[in-house]
């Protein structure tokens, strides 16, 4: 427990500042629980990675160029979100909107590539109902994809708010939490890339 924990609740902060601080702290805790969900799904995938039931395995299904391109899109989107955060901190409304738009497009690209990968596998007879291994794969990657989709909706909503209301401290704090979420999904994806795709390909 750090000092901040022990001395929390001092009277000097205003109500609004305290509320934003609490929201940030609560959001970190939520992310922690979400990380546990991904950890459990990853563990389940590892347990089932050989349960292919005579169906196709990772080596035949995963294509490195496709996965690599997808990964690059997501990593790039995290970078552009970083630029958006810088613009938000500087109070530059138009620039932050521009970077948020770029982030959105990169995220959408990632999602589109993911959907095309899923579709291709399902058509080729390697859908999630084929084997325990594929169930675990689709669920893990799909859960990440759902998170990215939620993030995209959230970017649109907050983008609209920035456009309509400008950058007040409340909007900035919301964007800050969105940023945490977005970078968190990046970290999770790196875990998925290293545990799911790389061993399958190499």
């Amino acid at each position, binding site marked *: *427990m750090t000092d901040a*924990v*022990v001395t*929390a*609740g*001092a*009277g000097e902060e205003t*109500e609004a500042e*305290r509320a934003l*601080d*609490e*929201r940030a*702290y*609560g959001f970190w*805790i*939520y992310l*922690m*629980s*979400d990380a*546990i*969900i991904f950890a*459990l*799904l990853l563990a*389940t995938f590892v*347990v*089932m990675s050989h*349960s*292919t*039931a005579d*169906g196709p395995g990772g080596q035949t299904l995963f294509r490195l160029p496709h996965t690599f391109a997808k990964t690059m899109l997501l990593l790039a989107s995290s970078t552009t979100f970083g630029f958006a955060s810088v613009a938000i901190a500087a109070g530059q409304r138009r620039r932050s909107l521009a970077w948020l738009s770029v982030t959105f497009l990169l995220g959408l690209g990632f999602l589109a590539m993911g959907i095309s990968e899923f579709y291709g596998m399902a058509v080729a007879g390697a859908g*999630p*109902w*084929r*084997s*325990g*291994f*594929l*169930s*675990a794969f*689709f*669920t893990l990657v799909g859960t990440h994809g759902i998170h990215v989709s939620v993030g995209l909706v959230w970017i649109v*909503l907050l983008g609209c*708010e920035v456009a309509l209301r400008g950058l007040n401290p*409340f909007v900035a704090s919301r964007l800050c939490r969105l940023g945490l979420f977005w970078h968190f999904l990046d970290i999770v994806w790196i875990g998925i890339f290293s545990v799911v795709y790389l061993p399958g390909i190499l």
Partner: protein
Amino acid sequence: MLGKLTIDALPYYSDIAVGGAVIIVLGALGVVALITWLGQWRYLWTEWLTSLDHKKIGIMYVALALIMLVRGFIDAMMMRTQQAVALDSDGYLPPDHFDQVFTSHATIMVFFVAMPFLVGLFNVVVPQQIGARDVAFPFMNSVSLWLTASGAALVMISLVIGRFSTAGWSAYPPYSEAQFSPGVGVDYWVWAILVGGVGSMLTGINVLVTIVKRRAPGMRLMMMPLFTWTALCTSILIVFAFPALTVAAALLGLDRYLGMHFFTDGDGGNVMTYINLFWIWGHPEVYILLLPAFGIYSEIVATFSGKRLFGYESLVYATAVITVLSLSVSLHHFFTMGAGSDVNAFFGRVAPLVAAPTGVMIFDWLFTMYRGRVRFSVPMLFTLGFIVTFVIGGMTGVLLAVAPVDYLMHDTTFLVAHFHNMMVPGALFGYLAGYQYWFPKAFGFRLEEKWGRRAFWAWIVGFYLAFIPLYILGFMGMPGRLERYYVAGWQPYLIVAEFGALFILCGIIFLGVQLAVSIRDRVALAVSTGDPWDGRTLEWATASPPAAYNFAVVPHVHGIDAWWVMKQAGTAGHRPARFHDIIMPDDSSAGVVLGAMSFVFAFAMIWQIWWLAAVGGLGLFAAVLSQTFRDHAGHRIPASEVEAIESRRTMAPALAPGAPM
């Protein structure tokens, strides 16, 4: 149009099921008619359902828990009666119905009695114990309540429409898979767990942030009341453990809905994964239920002994050690699954370690009472009953933690007796003690003593009569969940257990009578000072019932037992020199709408009515969206009004007729 929902969903398969459905429907209609007749819909909606006041939310949680306790107990009574008569015969319940009953009994008791009860007590008490005016996220609090209520409603409606799961409360695959349980029963279970689980998860985050961020100035962690400590550790466990339950239930749902193969027989499925995931949540859950009760006992022992808690720090460390250990012993729930002797040996060694911090607690409570002026009020009776009875459960637990012994006892009624020994005197007695202890805090009058004592004696005698026979039957090799049996030697014990259940029935009735009598005599039982038990912790510093803002002036804390210290120093109840405006959150109907929409969504998913699921899903999204951009959802209580409320409070003792102590 209506998916799988047809007229056949009505429970014509058994007369008793029809009776249950009729009771549920008539009960619901009766409540609606009563509220309409009293003309109280507006009051109910504005003052309660849409309220973001943590005390009211807490009271609604406890009310939900008590209602569901009655339902869960009826299930228990049905099982006891079936087993008492089902020697060489069918008894009165068909097998499929009996299986539903034991599944819903445990599901209800764990998720919709114990969880809302403890969360309700957190809500009423914790903010006041730490000198806060509210929880960190009042709206999220309301969402948690209504998600939990929605989960409970799903279990209730399964009595009327369709059937509930027959797969036991843990829903082990492969039996719970679509191949063996093709009906909607397991789907009801999955969705009730998912919806209620999200509610619990949000509560965990809320309580955790509240305790870490909202303590009164000066209150360091090592000054927090024990109940707040256990609430903190419980919230940490909720945040860590509930994701595992969500994953387990969701993957089971994916198997059932999309034909995946996580836990199926064949095609690469692995049932062990489910069991691991389930108990990664399940064991911490035991302590999520027990730790708050330990906190309640600690408060009560100190208050009713008139002494500072013996070994406060050791109690805190014991709580923390239990929190950590509880995350590392889950495998002792499935020694017999064939994990291998090395793994079993490890978990067999770790599991009994929990007895050490628990033992520390027991001794701390005993030493607190030693040479204290112990008052044997109802909360204290439940506490003493707990201490004696819980030790038996602890010892049978150590026995079960020995893996070779577990091979003999697994799935027998010995196990049933053991975990009821943990959950009834361990957890439920604590919640009931807390209910008796904090009732005057929430409502301004005490619960009547005589009926409370009767309830206690009925509960504890009933407990021993109902579960000691099950220990013995476990030694005799009787498996749990038997719908019929052919061993004549078992029947006498099962009849004794039936009598035990009847005693517990009396205990529940007496609690109801106590409540009715107390409401009738509320003037005589009023607590004018707001501090009926001569309490020690800060929640007794507020009025009873507290004003919406709890504390007109946030107190400064200098040590443990802050309120006791103030009373000793003579500074308690001093009128502050100045009052300030206080900002409190506005009421919001979005929470109850969100709960209702989650119910619609889950119900539609269970019956695969896809258009209705879309409606529910959109409703959920809209309810969330309506709150996303609200920043200043609060109203200001002006200083003059605060002053007026506080003046009324200080005047009240003089006006109250014959204030009883």
